[in-house]
């Protein structure tokens, strides 16, 4: 079942890639996180060149987020005005990021930067998930009769209301400066192009806690924004960097579509807090493995790669 990847220039076992897609889809079905941040490290572990891993990862997310976005759009869970403002930022960030990737790749530093970004990101995400799930497990044991949900009703921080270019977002029932979502979008766009992630794990908490959007429209708007950001980055990575591997992306999408179904089915039957703990441990383990990769002296300090 070996297949030659035309852009990655390597042989891979089709089933391994299908399995990777499956794991990520399974996790996203199970726990609800996108899982794009696990695909790139997995591809790097089997020797896919970093830029190809990141670019094909973005293309894969286009496929995996399409049906979810459509479903939320049909249900009216998308704040289009907010999504468009975010997209102004993320499309700019995506274009800038793809060109940064091109420059880093030419200098031979892209792989290093990706590793550092992932160690940092997975470290932070994994650690906070770990803390959160441990707290949740403890809390659910201590007082099972009722949880004390203390959502602060204090509203936006003062500085956000004082920024210029205020705009009304009727669907989210918000008045907000345009600058905030554009800047957030820009950051997510950069992450998508440099790391091959959708950025939902950043966008969702930012929308809930920082922008204080109603939870009902958060997931739909975030997915919609993410779909078009990854689509832009995927086009640019193919056009500018010739780094999107069609076979890799296709097999990943099929794998993750299958995995998602399985994960969703299982997720309804298994306890959520334990699942989150397992995912947190997986994320931390991947971060640690990547960190060891740059901490341990390599077998050979010299290595040979095909010139671009």
């Amino acid at each position, binding site marked *: 079942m*070996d*297949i*030659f990847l*035309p852009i990655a*220039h*390597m*042989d891979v076992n089709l089933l391994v890639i299908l399995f990777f897609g499956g794991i990520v889809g399974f996790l996203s079905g199970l726990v609800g996180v996108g899982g794009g941040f696990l695909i790139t490290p997995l591809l790097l572990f089997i020797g896919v060149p970093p830029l190809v891993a990141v670019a094909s990862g973005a*293309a*894969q997310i*286009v*496929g*995996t*987020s*399409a*049906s*979810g976005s*459509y*479903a939320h759009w*049909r*249900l009216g869970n998308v704040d289009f005005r907010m999504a468009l403002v975010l997209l102004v930022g993320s499309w700019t960030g995506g274009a800038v990021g793809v060109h940064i990737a091109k420059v880093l790749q030419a200098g*031979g*530093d892209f*792989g*290093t930067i990706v590793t550092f970004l992932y160690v940092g990101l997975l470290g932070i995400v994994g650690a906070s998930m770990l803390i959160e799930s441990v707290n949740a497990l403890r809390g659910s044991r201590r007082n099972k009769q009722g949880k004390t949900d203390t959502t602060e009703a204090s509203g936006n921080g003062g500085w956000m209301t004082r920024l210029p270019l205020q705009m009304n977002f009727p669907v989210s029932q918000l008045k907000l400066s345009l600058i905030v979502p554009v800047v957030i979008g820009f950051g997510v766009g950069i992450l998508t192009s440099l790391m091959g992630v959708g950025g939902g794990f950043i966008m969702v908490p930012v929308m809930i806690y920082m922008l204080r959007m109603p939870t009902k429209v958060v*997931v*739909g708007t975030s997915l919609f924004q993410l*779909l078009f950001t990854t*689509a832009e980055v*995927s*086009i*640019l*990575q*193919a*056009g500018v960097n*010739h780094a*999107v591997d*069609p*076979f890799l*992306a*296709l097999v990943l*999408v*099929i794998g993750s*579509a*299958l995995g*998602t*179904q399985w994960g*969703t089915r299982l997720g309804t039957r298994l306890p959520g807090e334990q699942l989150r703990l397992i995912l947190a441990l997986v994320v931390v383990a991947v971060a640690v493995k990547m960190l060891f990769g*740059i*901490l*341990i*002296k*390599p077998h*050979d*300090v*010299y*290595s*040979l*790669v*095909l*010139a671009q």
Partner: protein
Amino acid sequence: MKMMKFSLAALCLLPALALAANAPAASSSAPRLVTELTRDHVDISTRYKGDEITLFGAMTSPAQVVVKITSPIQPVSIKQKGRVGPFWLNVAKYDVANTPGLYYLLSSAPLDQLLPSAAVRTRYGLAITDALAHVQISPKPEDADKLRQTLLSLKAAKHEYISDGSAVKISGKRLYYATIRLPAQLPLGVYGVDIYLVRNGQVIATDHRSINVAEVHVEHWISNITSNFSWIFGVSFTFAMMMLGLFLGVVLGRGRNSKKA
């Protein structure tokens, strides 16, 4: 079994060789050799995982045989890692131009025994270091010799530069054959196959064949569109991924998505 087959095939070449040797030419007594390949082309398809081509032939008088296979030029980069604080990072990168991707020296005995004179080996490019005869390394390394050695050992480790003194078999003092093993990843283009008949430290006859390595069908089409029409590819592929995602969602989900929301 395999050896029998090629020996028989090579035997068929003998009459032709005898005719050629007996032909009234200026050097009718000069040793001659005739070589054939089981295939002169390699098709790179999606399922290509490496290939084997057998070279076989006959010679008019007993001698040793050396086969040199040279691929087209394939630019590579050498990355050097070094300690930066607690980390091992790439600290230098050298671009290597003008060297063949593959360089195989296959012979019936070790080359330094067959051709003791280094000058003779160099004349025919029959030392592994000759692969780097026209190498250009940029930026200029501090210690160029050391980097060349590093390049040779990296290439050897990947089995891309091979010197094998037992790869050519000789049977019955007249027939020879060797298996050329091509890796899964290799540069495209025309590979030169040079055959040298060696006796008493001298090359006494040569022959030349070539192997054409080319992409076929889908593979050719994909590499053409992704490199020459990268924007069209990017837009249409991304759109196709979106459609595939929707399709899979509908087929596998059947309303599951709306339930989740």
